[in-house]
């Protein structure tokens, strides 16, 4: 994997570190400059563009990914910090033949309109369901309160997550 830098006068001085990590089950080695953000490693380095950068200011949650199973805002973590850790992005939810119940739920319950916030919503929801397989509506709203959606009014997103919870339990 290559990340290309502009050839600046001090290009030889750029501190580059080699990191090893797992993303969606695949082991990777990357050479990254410490100031590279995790969101940029994922989108530009790994070309996994399902992770969206929305506000870029730690507010909206569109860039949410799981690091060791916990949702984090990937615009607010340095790529070097995932050395030795495991990342899940929205691309890691479905298998080759089957959608993840959360993805099915968003389809069934019309949980998206423009879809920009959806990957972050799904990963925040996945972390909730991993921790609490039988959440109340209130639990779902609470768990998604760090993720902003400007289309849906949240109603159908909450329904989608509850749909997925039920499917996963059955």
């Amino acid at each position: 994997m290559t990340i290309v830098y502009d050839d600046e006068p001090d290009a030889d001085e750029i501190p580059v570190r080699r990191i090893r990590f797992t993303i969606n089950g695949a082991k990777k080695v990357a050479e990254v400059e410490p100031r590279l953000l995790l969101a940029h490693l994922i989108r530009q380095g790994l070309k996994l563009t399902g992770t969206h950068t929305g506000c870029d200011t730690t507010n909206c949650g569109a860039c949410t990914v799981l690091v060791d199973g916990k949702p984090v805002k990937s615009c607010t973590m340095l790529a070097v910090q995932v050395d030795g850790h495991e990342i899940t992005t929205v691309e890691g939810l479905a298998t080759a033949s089957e959608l993840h119940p959360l993805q099915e739920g968003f389809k069934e319950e019309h949980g998206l309109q423009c879809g920009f916030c959806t990957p972050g919503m799904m990963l925040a929801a996945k972390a909730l369901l991993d921790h609490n397989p039988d959440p109340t509506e209130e639990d779902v709203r609470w768990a998604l309160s760090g993720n902003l959606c400007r289309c849906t009014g949240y109603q159908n997103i909450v329904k989608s997550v509850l749909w997925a919870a039920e499917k996963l339990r059955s």
Partner: protein
Amino acid sequence: MYPSRFRYEAPRSLDEAITLLREGGDDAKVLAGGQSLVPLMKLRFASPELIVDINNLPGLDYHREDPDGTLHVGALCRHVDLERSELLKSKQPTMAAAAPLIADPIVRNRGTLVGSLCHADPQGDWASVALALGGSIVAHGLGGRRTIKVADFVTGPFQNVLEPDEIAVEAIIPAARGARAGGYLKLERRVGDFATVGVAVAIETSGDTVTRAGIALTGVGGSTIGATAAAEALVGEPLTEQKIELAAQLAADVSRPRTDHRGSAEYKRHIVHTFVVRLLSRADGFAERAA
């Protein structure tokens, strides 16, 4: 947005971290949860030349209580750990109330209480909670450790008394001598916003009598405000309606809110009063139930 260029080190021991910080001097910053520092670096409000990431330091992710009731919160204890803590729910009502109100659920997975105290944002919620509870910070440096009262720790917005080669390794909340009561109320426009107004109340009672009281205010001044006179008015007496009203008035008087997009100064001062009354009325109920 991305930060300006810096050198990154992730030491495995505290000694190594201290040595690195000593090398870096004023141009070095400690990275714990990074939920305040990284956004500031992206906006180029902070451009440290050296980042010392302490996330690989072993044994700092604890929060535990000594047999005497003193609470210790390690530098890598995340907000989410405190939000889910049974210990806090049963023993620390003010902290248990504040933990779920810090930022948003995703930020709480990374951010830390100690980091938040060090960051010294005048809008920080934990600073009020720690101040109301009479907490301290333990700083680890080459010369050993020193304990600094939260009240003496912050010198101004985003400034604290740590030396460049010191790391805040834990926060300490002293043991209660009586039954603990209190809470934290935060008015926010939406989840994740800074407090329009935050009020922390921590009291201890013995029988009917209040034996210790702390009240601190978030978002209504250029720094966290300790409402000392309000708290002192409660000590040595039972919590009566008149006492609660007096404390609320004194707390509102000491607030220095500014009119801004979150509300008018008058509105914010009114909310301080309302929150103090609510928290103390609840505390009174708590004392009755405990008796």
